[in-house]
C-alpha cells in the first residue's frame, strides 16, 4: 500500500483517571483505505483510546488530527458529524423503529414543509444496504431481524454518513460465521472506497484475515505497531502479554510454591459443555489437590466456562459430574450442594453485597447450613465468621462493618471466606487477584497453594501469565470458546503457553512447527483427549 497522509492521527495522547494512567503518550495513525487492528488485553487502554478519539473523553495531553486538521470533539455527536463513525459491541439502535428509520435516525431526508420524506428514506436506505450486499426489508422493525443483520444496519448507518474513519469495537462478538463473512465483505468495500477502519477484536483469525496493520496496546502504551503480515501470531501474543520470546522466566515472582500431589481419580468432570456461540464442547477434569489453570486471551471463553460449570449461565448441552455423580446444570444452588464454589471475576457486580455487613457477606452461601427450620443460628454464624476472619486475616473494624467500606483485597478475602466456610471440593477462581494490592495478592496465591495441598481441587483463571504458569499443575488452553491444548507439569512455561494460545488447535502441522521454532522449544504440547 502507498504511504498516504493519515486520515486520523493521534499524537502523544495522555489520559489520566484518578489513580490510573489510562493512556500514556499514545501515538497512532490510521491511513485511508487500511484496516487497522487495535488489540490489547483488559485495561490496556483500547476503549479509552477510542473514547478519546470519538470525543467521549478529552485527552489531558496530546493532539488528535482528523483529515490533517487538529480536532477537539466535545461529544460523540461532533466526531460523528465530522466523519468518524463508531460501531459499538452492543448494538445501539432503536429496536422498534424500522431499518430505514434507524439508518437515517437524526438526519432523515426532508420533503416539502420540512416533513420526513418516507419514500425517499426507504429508497435510499435500500440502496445503501444493497451496495454492501446486505439483504433486509428496510420497512421492517429492526428487532424483527437477526442480531447479525442488526449489526449490519449499524454498519450501514455508520458508513452512510460519508464517514472517512470507521471504528468497529468487537463487531463480530455476537455474529454467526456466515454473518461475519458479510461483515468482512462490507469492510473490504470500505477499504476500496478509501475509508480507514479501526478494527478491535480478540479473535486472531479475524485479525489476520481482514487487517492490514496492527497496533498493540499494553498498560496504556503502544507496545508495537506495524504490518500485521510481518508479525507471527506468537509475536503478536507476546506483545499483548508483554513477554519477550526468548526471555527465560525465573520462578518465584508469585506467591505460588511447588507442584501438588494430585489424586488419580478426578473429582470434577465436565463433558462437552456447549453454549452457542461462546463455548464449544469444552471438556475438563479436576482431581483433588490439583490446580488446573484455564488460559486464554480475552474473549476465549474462560469466564464462560467457569460460569457454565457453576451453573451461573445455562448451557445448550453438556454434562457435569462431581465424584462420579451427575450435577444438575444451570443451577448455582445445585453446584454449591455438590461441593463447587465460585469466586466470580467481577467482585463488585457479582461478588459482594455492598450494604450488608462483613458477617452477612461471609455467611451468604452458608445460610442453609447455619439455619434450623429457617432460623439463622446467630451463635453458629458468629463462630464461623470469627474463624474465617481470623484464618484469612480479614481486616475490618468489626464483623458488622459494611463490606463496601473494605479494601479490594479484603473484600476478596471476604468472598473467599464465603466459599471456604462451605468446605468445597472444587474451588473455581476467576481472576482472584485482579485489582488488589501486591501484599494481598501474594497472600491469596499462597492460600490457593495451601488449599490444594489439603486436597482441594482448584480451577484457576488469570490473565497474568505468571499466575497461571506458576500456580497451576496443569493448564488447559482455550481459544474462541474451545479447548485448544493442555500442558502439564514440566511443560508449563510461558513460552509453551503462548505458542499454544497462538497456534493450538489449528489444523495441519505447519502451525505447530512454526510455533515450536519461534519458541525455540519442542512442540511438547498434548492435544486434549476428546
Amino acid at each position, binding site marked *: 500500500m502507498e504511504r498516504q497522509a493519515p486520515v486520523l492521527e493521534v499524537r502523544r495522547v495522555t489520559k489520566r483517571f484518578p489513580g490510573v494512567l489510562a493512556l500514556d503518550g499514545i501515538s497512532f495513525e490510521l491511513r485511508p483505505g487500511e484496516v487497522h487492528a487495535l488489540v490489547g488485553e483488559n485495561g490496556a487502554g483500547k476503549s479509552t483510546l477510542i473514547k478519546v478519539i470519538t470525543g467521549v473523553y478529552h485527552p489531558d495531553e496530546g493532539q488528535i488530527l482528523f483529515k490533517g486538521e487538529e480536532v477537539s470533539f466535545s461529544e460523540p455527536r461532533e466526531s460523528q458529524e465530522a466523519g468518524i463513525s463508531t460501531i459499538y459491541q452492543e448494538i445501539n439502535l432503536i429496536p422498534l423503529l424500522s431499518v430505514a428509520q434507524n439508518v437515517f435516525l437524526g438526519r432523515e431526508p426532508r420533503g416539502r414543509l420540512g416533513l420526513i420524506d418516507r419514500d425517499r428514506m426507504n429508497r435510499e436506505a435500500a440502496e445503501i444496504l444493497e451496495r454492501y450486499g446486505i439483504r433486509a426489508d428496510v420497512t421492517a422493525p429492526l428487532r424483527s431481524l437477526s442480531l447479525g443483520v442488526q449489526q449490519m444496519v449499524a454498519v450501514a448507518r455508520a458508513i452512510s454518513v460519508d464517514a472517512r474513519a470507521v471504528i468497529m469495537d468487537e463487531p463480530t462478538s455476537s455474529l454467526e460465521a456466515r454473518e461475519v463473512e458479510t461483515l468482512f465483505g462490507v469492510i473490504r468495500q470500505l477499504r476500496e472506497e478509501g475509508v480507514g477502519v479501526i478494527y478491535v477484536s480478540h479473535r486472531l483469525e479475524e485479525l489476520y484475515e481482514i487487517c492490514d496493520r496492527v497496533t498493540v496496546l499494553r498498560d496504556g502504551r503502544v507496545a508495537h505497531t506495524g504490518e500485521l503480515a510481518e508479525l507471527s501470531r506468537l509475536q503478536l501474543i507476546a506483545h499483548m502479554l508483554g513477554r519477550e520470546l526468548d526471555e527465560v522466566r525465573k520462578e518465584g515472582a508469585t506467591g505460588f510454591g511447588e507442584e501438588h500431589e494430585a489424586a488419580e481419580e478426578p473429582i470434577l468432570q465436565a463433558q462437552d459443555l456447549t453454549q452457542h456461540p461462546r463455548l464449544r464442547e469444552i471438556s475438563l477434569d479436576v482431581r483433588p489437590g490439583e490446580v488446573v489453570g484455564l488460559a486464554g486471551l480475552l474473549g476465549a471463553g474462560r469466564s464462560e466456562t467457569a460460569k457454565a460449570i457453576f451453573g451461573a449461565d445455562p448451557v445448550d448441552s453438556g454434562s457435569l459430574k462431581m465424584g462420579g455423580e451427575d450435577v444438575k446444570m444451570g443451577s*448455582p*444452588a445445585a453446584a454449591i450442594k455438590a461441593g463447587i464454589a465460585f469466586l466470580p471475576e467481577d467482585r463488585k457486580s*457479582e461478588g459482594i453485597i455492598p450494604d450488608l455487613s462483613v458477617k452477612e457477606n461471609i455467611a451468604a452461601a452458608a*445460610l442453609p447450613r447455619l*439455619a434450623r427450620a429457617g*432460623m439463622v443460628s446467630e451463635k453458629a454464624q458468629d463462630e464461623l465468621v470469627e474463624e474465617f476472619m481470623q484464618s484469612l486475616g480479614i481486616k475490618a473494624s468489626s464483623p458488622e462493618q459494611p463490606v463496601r467500606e473494605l479494601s479490594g483485597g479484603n473484600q476478596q478475602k471476604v468472598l473467599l471466606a*464465603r466459599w471456604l466456610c462451605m468446605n468445597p471440593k472444587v474451588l473455581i477462581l476467576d481472576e482472584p487477584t485482579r485489582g488488589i494490592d501486591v501484599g494481598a495478592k501474594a497472600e491469596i496465591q499462597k492460600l490457593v497453594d495451601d488449599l490444594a495441598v489439603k486436597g482441594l481441587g482448584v480451577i484457576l483463571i488469570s490473565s497474568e501469565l505468571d499466575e497461571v504458569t506458576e500456580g497451576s499443575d496443569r493448564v488447559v488452553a482455550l481459544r474462541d470458546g474451545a479447548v485448544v491444548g493442555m500442558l502439564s507439569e514440566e511443560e508449563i512455561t510461558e513460552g509453551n503457553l503462548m505458542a499454544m494460545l497462538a497456534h493450538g488447535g489449528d489444523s495441519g502441522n505447519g502451525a505447530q512447527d512454526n510455533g515450536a521454532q519461534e519458541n525455540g522449544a519442542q512442540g511438547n504440547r498434548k492435544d486434549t483427549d476428546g
Partner: protein
Amino acid sequence: MARGATAEKSFDVATVTSWVRGRGVYVAFVVLVIFNLIVTPNFASVVTLTTLLITVSPIILVSLGVALTIGTEGIDLSVGSVMALASAFLPLYLGYGWPVAVLVVLLVGALAGLVNGSLVAFVGIQPIIATLALLVGGRGLAQIFAGGQSLPITDPAVLWLGQGRLFGVPAPVIVAVVAVLVVGFLVKRTTFGRYVVAVGGNRSASYLSGHPVRRTLLAVYVISGLLAALAGIVATARLGASDPSNIGLLIELSAITAVVVGGTPLSGGRVKIMGTVMGALLIQLISNTFISNDLPFTWAQVLTAGIILVAVYVQKGRGTT
C-alpha cells in the same frame, strides 16, 4: 489496625450525623410529639393516642409488606386495591361463618400477591409495572364482585377486629403489633430475611451464592398481598361495612412514604421494620396535627412531601461519608 484511628477520627460530628441519619424518623417523631404536647389541646389524652394508633394500624400493616418488596429492590403498588378486594369479599362469605370468610379473604390477598410475584420473578416484568396492573384493575374487580354496593358487616367476631378491645388495647392495634413482630422476626432471624436483603442488595451475587432468588421474590409479594388483605379486613370491620370504592384508596402512597422515611432505601438491600412503623406513625401524626389544630389539610400534604424529600436526600448522602 485501622480500628483505633477511624474510631477516633469519626467520633464527634460524623458519628452524630450518621446517628441522626439512621434514626432521623425517630427524631422527627419526637419533635412532632413535643410540638403537639405544647400546641394541640388535649393531645396527651388516652383518646387521642388510641385514635392515632387505630387509624395508623392498616397503614402499618400494608407498609410492612411494601417494605419487604422495596427491600428486594421492588415495590408493591397494588396494596390499596387488594384492601378493596378484601373488603368486597368479606361480606360475601360471612354466611359460612367468620373463619371461612377471613380465610377466603386472606387467600384472595395471597393470590393477588402470587400474581404480582409471578410477574416479577418469573416473567421478569418490572415490579412497578407488574403491580400497577393490579392497582388499576383490582379496585374495579372489587366493585364488580361487590355488585357496586356497600354491604353491612354484622358478624360480631369480625366487627371485633375493627372495633373491639383486649385489656383496653384496641384490636386493630393488636393485629398490627403481632404483624410487626412476625415480619420483624422474619427479617431479623430467618434465612428468608437474609435472602430478601441479599436479593435487593446484589441480585447476581445472591444468585451466585445459591440463594433461591425467584422464590424469595415470589414470597415477598405473597406476604405483601396477605398483609394488605388483613389491613382490608381490619378497615372494613372498623367501618362496619364493606366499601370497595374507598377502602385503601391511595394507601400505597402512605405506605411507600412510611417505608422510605423509615430508612429503607428504594434501591433495596435493607429493610427497616421499626423505621417503617415510625414512618407510618409520623405521617399519621402530621395529618392528625393539622386536623386537630384546624389547619388546612392541604398544608399537611405539603409538609409530608417535604419530609419525603428530606428523607430521600439524607439517604442519598449515605455512603459518601
